[in-house]
C-alpha cells in the first residue's frame, strides 16, 4: 500500500518537474528575442470581427515599428483595463470611459491617437418599429421612453451606456422608470439584434457600429429605426502603457503615434485597415480631452 501511495505521489510530482525546464526555456528565449508589443481592444463588437481587424493592424504596426506585435482578445471591458494595468497589454483601443479608467490606474499611460470621428462621437437610440416609438426632436423627448423596455450595451461602454445614461438623466428619466429592469446586452451588435428581435423596445448604441451594420445590410430596417441622435462627445482612443519606453526606447511612444497618423487611405492595404476600423484617418489626442468623460463617469459612479 505504501509503495503504491508513494509511487502515486512521485508520479503526481513528475509533470511538475517536466514542466519546469520548458518554462525556463521559453523565458531565456524571450530574453534573446525581442518581447512582442501586445495590443488589445475592448470587445465592443462581434468578437470575430474584432479578431480580423486587429490582426491586420498588428501586421501593419509590426512593419512600421520593427518589433513583433501581437493581438490578444479580451472578453470584457473591465478585463481589458485590468490586463492593461497588470502589464499584459501594452497598447489598447479603449472607449472613452475605459480609457479614463486605464489612465487613472496606470500612472504615465498616455492617450496617443484616435479616429477623426472620435472627437465628435455620437450615440444613437434605436427602437423596434412595433413599439410605436417615433423620432425624437429634442433631448426632452427621451421622456417618451418611460414605460418601455430598454437595454444598454456593456456596463462600461461609453457610447452604449455612460453617455446615454447621462442624457437620460438630463432629460429627467430614472432607470427604474423603464418597464422591467434595464438590460445590459454586452456589446453594440447584441443591442441591435435584441432590439431588432423585439426583446427590448429600445436601446442605445454606438453610432458608428450602427451605420456600418446598416451599410452592410446586417440590420433589418423594417424592424428597427433610429429615434434619436445624441450630442457629441470624445470617445475611443489608443492608450499606451509607459512600460514600452523601457522595453523599446524612450521615443517608442512617439513612433507608435506616428505609425497611426501615417495610415494613408490612398495605400490599398492601409485603406483596408482604416475601413475595418471605420476611420478615414487617425489624429493625435491627449489625456486632457477626456475631462468631460471623467466628470460624467464620476457622476454616474463608474469612476471612484
Amino acid at each position: 500500500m505504501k509503495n503504491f501511495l508513494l509511487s502515486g505521489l512521485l508520479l503526481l510530482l513528475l509533470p511538475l518537474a517536466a514542466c519546469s525546464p520548458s518554462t525556463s526555456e521559453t523565458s531565456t528565449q524571450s530574453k534573446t528575442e525581442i518581447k512582442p508589443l501586445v495590443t488589445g481592444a475592448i470587445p465592443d463588437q462581434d468578437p470575430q470581427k474584432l479578431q480580423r481587424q486587429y490582426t491586420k493592424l498588428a501586421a501593419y504596426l509590426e512593419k512600421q515599428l520593427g518589433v513583433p506585435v501581437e493581438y490578444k482578445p479580451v472578453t470584457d471591458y473591465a478585463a481589458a483595463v485590468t490586463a492593461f494595468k497588470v502589464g499584459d497589454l501594452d497598447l489598447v483601443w479603449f472607449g472613452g470611459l475605459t480609457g479614463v479608467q486605464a489612465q487613472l490606474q496606470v500612472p504615465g499611460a498616455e492617450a496617443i491617437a484616435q479616429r477623426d470621428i472620435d472627437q465628435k462621437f455620437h450615440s444613437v437610440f434605436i427602437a423596434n418599429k412595433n413599439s410605436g416609438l417615433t423620432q425624437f426632436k429634442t433631448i426632452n423627448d427621451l421622456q417618451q421612453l418611460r414605460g418601455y423596455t430598454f437595454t444598454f450595451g456593456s456596463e462600461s461602454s461609453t457610447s452604449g451606456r455612460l453617455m446615454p445614461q447621462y442624457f437620460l438623466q438630463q432629460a429627467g428619466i430614472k432607470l427604474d422608470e423603464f418597464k422591467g429592469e434595464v438590460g445590459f446586452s454586452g456589446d453594440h451588435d447584441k443591442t441591435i439584434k435584441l432590439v431588432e428581435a423585439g426583446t427590448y423596445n429600445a436601446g442605445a448604441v454606438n453610432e458608428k457600429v450602427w451605420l456600418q451594420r446598416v451599410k452592410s445590410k446586417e440590420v433589418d430596417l423594417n424592424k428597427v429605426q433610429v429615434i434619436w441622435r445624441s450630442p457629441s462627445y470624445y470617445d475611443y482612443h489608443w492608450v499606451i502603457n509607459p512600460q514600452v519606453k523601457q522595453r523599446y526606447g524612450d521615443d517608442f511612444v512617439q513612433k507608435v503615434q506616428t505609425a497611426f497618423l501615417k495610415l494613408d487611405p490612398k495605400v490599398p492595404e492601409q485603406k483596408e485597415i482604416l475601413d475595418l476600423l471605420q476611420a478615414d484617418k487617425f489624429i493625435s489626442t491627449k489625456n486632457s480631452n477626456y475631462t468631460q468623460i471623467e466628470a460624467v463617469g464620476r457622476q454616474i459612479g463608474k469612476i471612484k
Partner: protein
Amino acid sequence: MNRKDIKGRFHRTLPKQPSLLNSRTMWGLLFVAAVIWSLHESGLFERDLVNVGGWTLVMRFLIAATRPELDVEFLQLTLEATLQTLAYGVCGTAFSLIFGLVGGILSSEVWWQSISLVKFPTPWLVVRFFLAIPRAIHELIWGLFFINIFGLDPLVAVLAIAIPFGAITAKVFSEILDETPRQPLMALLNSGVSPLNAFVYSLIPQSFPNLLSYAFYRFECSIRSAAVLGIIGAGGLGYQILLSLQSLRYEEMWTFLIALVLLSGSTDFWSAMLRRSIGAPSRLDLNLHLSKPKSTLQNTQTLAIHLLQGDRLVKVSLFAAIGLLIFSFWYVNADFTKLSSPQTFDLLIGVIQDSFPPDITKFYQLFTLSAQTLAMSILAIAIAGIGGILLSFPAANNLLLPEDNSHSLWGITVLVFTRFLLLFTRAIPAPIWALIFLFVLFPGILPGAIALAIHNLGILGRLMAEVIENLDQRPLRSLQALGATNSQIFLYGILPRTLSRFVAYILYRWEVCIRATVIVGLVGAGGLGRLLTEQLSSFDYKGLVSTLICFICLTFLVDLISATVRRSLR
C-alpha cells in the same frame, strides 16, 4: 383493575401516534414559507417578469439545435477548446487534491488528537475556520481576483479551481478521516510510531477508497467549473459558448454545447465505472451515520483485492489519470514563475490597499440585495429539489424491480432519455442557462433562479438516482412478493428509505447554490452578483469587499441552517 390501569396498559401495547408537531413538520412548514417569501421577493406578484418580445430569439436558438455547425475547421476549434477545458479541469483537480490532502489532515480532529492527545485542541478549530473562507467564495470570484494579480495567464483558471476546491476537498477529507475507525491508528500511536507515519500506515490506506471516490467526484466538478471560468476569459468551451452566444451564432453554439455535454458525460461515466469497481458506488456520501465504518473496511479490502488481482479498470484508470495529468500541464502551459515574481507581490499589495477599508455606505442596498440573493437560492433549490426527485426515479436503472420491467424497450427508452436530460442540464453551466433565460425574462432574480435550478436539477437528479440504485433490494422484493402494486412499493418501500437522503443532498446543493448565485448575477441576473459586476466594471474595490463580506455571511448562514436541518432529520 381500574380504568387508569387499563388506559396505561393500552398505551403500552399500542404504539403512540407520533405528534404532527415534530421538528420535521416544522422544517417543512418553514420551507413552504421560505418559498412563498422568495416568490414575493422575485416580484412574481407585482412586476412584469416575462419579456414576450424575446420568443423569436428563443425559437431561433432551438431551431439551430437541429443543424449544429459541423465544418471541419470549426470542429478543430471545438476540439482545441474541449481539450483546454479538460486540461484546466485536470490541473485544477490535481492542485486541489494536494491542498485537500494536506488541509484535510490538518483540519481533522483525529490528527490534532494524535499529536497532542487533548480532546479539543485549538489549532483544529483555527484551521477549520481559515478553510471556511476560501470555500465560501465562488471559483469565478477567485478567477476575477487572480486576473488582477496574474493578468491573462492560464494560471488564473488553474488556481481559481484549485483554491476553493482544495478547501472543499480538505473539509470532506477531514470528515472522512474523522469517521474512519481509529483502532489501528491508536495501536500504532501507542507503540510509539510518530503521528505522520501512523497516519500513512493506518488511516489513509483505510479511507483510501472513499478519498479516491471523492477525488473523482471533484474531477467531475472541476470540469464543470473550468467551463464556467471560460466566461471570464480563461478560454476553452465556456469562453467559446459565450462568444457564440454574444454574436448570436446559435449553430456554432450548439456544436460547443454538444462537445461540453460529451466531455462532461464521459468524465461522469468514467468516474462512475471506477467507483463501482472499487466498491464505493456513491459519488458523494453525505454522512448520515449509516453503517459507514464497516463499509469503509470492506471497501479497503475490496480495493486491496482489486489491486492485487490487477483489476484492469482501476489499473488503466490510474495510468490514464497520470497520462492526462502530464498532458494537461503541458497543454495549459501556465507560467508558474509568476507565483513568486516580485510583480505579483506588488500587484497583490496594490489590490489590498485599494480594497480597504470596505465601503459600507450602501448598507441598505446591500441588505435588500442579500435578501434577493437568498430568495434566488431558495427558489432555485426548491425547483431543483422537486424536479430532481421526480426525475431521479425514471433515471435509476433498478427502479421498480427491474427483472420484469426495465428490459422492456419502453423502460430502456425512458431510462436513457431521463439520464440524457439530466446530463444535458448539468453539463451546461448555470450562467449560460441564465443568458438564455434572459431572452424572455427581465433581469432580476427569477432568470437567475431558473438557471441555477436547471443546472442543479441535473446534478441532484443524478445523485438521487444513485441513492435509489444503491438501495437494498430485499425489502422491495418482499413487498412485491406480498402482492404490492408498483405505486405501493414506491410509497412504502422506496420513498421512506430515500427521502431523508434526498433532503440531505438538497440541503448540500443549497449550500452550493448560494455560492453560485454570484455567477448568474455576473451575466445580468439579479441579486448581489449584479451589483458585483457593476462594481467590477467601476473598479470600486472598496465596495467590492463589502459585497463579498455580505456573500460570505450569507454562505455561512445557509451552511448553518443546512447543518441544523440535517442534524434534526437524522
